[in-house]
Each structure stands twice: as C-alpha cells, then as structure tokens.
C-alpha cells in the first residue's frame, strides 16, 4: 500500500457511516494529503468510487485485501 497521511478504520460500520466518517476526516486534512480508509461494508467499493467522482477528491487506490476493503483518497 502506498504512503498515506492519515488512516481511518471504518471496519464493522455500515452505509452511510464509512463515507460520512471519511468526509469528516478529510475536512480536517489539507489539500494533497492522502487518507487511507479501511472498511468491511461491501457496498463501500461503489460508494467510495461515487464519493470521489462527486466531490473531486481522487480515489488513488481501491482494493480488497484480507477480507477488508482499502481505499486511498487524495484530498483535492
């Protein structure tokens, strides 16, 4: 996994909490910084893709590993 500035573990949380927590964490970060989100909600794969497209934050990476979903989001 590439470098990141902050990590958010949203394991066990269901829709829409992973997105809401991610948004809140991104709010406190500065432009260009990367957030690593870990989630177990299978719906989060499409949701983080949609979140990135609509907010302009870049989804640098999205993958499944060890039964968990990992997302790298670069704040715009």
């Amino acid at each position: 996994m590439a470098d990141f500035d902050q990590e958010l573990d949203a394991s066990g949380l269901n829709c829409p909490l992973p997105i809401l927590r991610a948004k809140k964490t991104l709010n406190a970060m500065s432009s260009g910084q990367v957030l690593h989100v870990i989630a177990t909600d299978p719906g989060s794969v499409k949701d983080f893709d949609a979140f990135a497209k609509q907010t302009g934050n870049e989804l640098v990476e999205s993958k499944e590993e060890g039964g968990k979903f990992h997302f790298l989001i670069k704040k715009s």
Partner: protein
Amino acid sequence: MEQKKLAIIATKGSLDWAYPPFILASTAAALGYEVQVFFTFYGLQLLKKKPNLEVTPLGNPGMPMPMGMDKWFPVLGLALPGMQGMMTAMMKQKMKSKGVASIEELRELCLEAEVKMIACQMTVDLFDMPKAEFIDDVEYAGAAAFFEFAGESDICLYI
C-alpha cells in the same frame, strides 16, 4: 460549479422509515449538497430530543420476521400486546450488530453537516406538540417556505 440542492419531505414516524431521510440527507451533505428536510405529520417524531421510534409488523407483509414468526402468528398474532415492543427491540439489536448507525447518531451527523431541519408549523399546532420537546436546531415554517428551497433543488424526495 454551483452547489447542488436536495429537498426532502419526511412524513413518517416509525423506526424503519426514519432511516431514509437521515441517511440520504447526511450522505448528500457529505457529497457537497445543500440539504433541507421538511418534517410534517408523523415525521415530526424524528425531531424529538428523545425520539421513541418503533417498528411494527402490522400491515407490513414485507417485513422479515425472525424464526418464521409470521407463519406461527399470522395477522392477528402480530397485534398481540408487546409484539411491537419486541419487534422494535429485535430490530435495534440487529441494527447494532450490523454496524448500522442509530437515528440519533445520523441526525447528529446531519446537523454537523449543516442540514437544515424544518418542522411544519401547521402539524406542530395540530398535534399540540410542545416545541421544548424538539431539538434546538429546528426551524418552523410552512409549505411556501419549503417551495422556496424545493423549487431550486436538483433532487426532491417525498418520504
């Protein structure tokens, strides 16, 4: 790009139907939408400081019942005293175990994200609901005020 707008009318006051307005409002706010929710009739229950929301299997054939209870207790059995309280407790337990947020938590996230919550003044008066029972962030207005925002919204939902 101009900020998108979401307008929601929330009319229902049961635990299950409390979710759609708060899930959609909080998510839209996270996506950058400006959001207003207009609460009317039973939807006003969602604005109470301590919402006491329940779920009922009555008149709801689509509700999955644990342990095939709907087969053992057809229609009239669902009207037994205590059934609603039991279903509510089971639903809350299930939601907690699946990591689904509580209504209070989602509402708080909406408020943090500056979702505007408007109570229908007419129904507040109709039901003699004391304003002290509602959370402080509520504004009171009527249908015309809703249209002022809804008329310019990109998405408008009636729930």
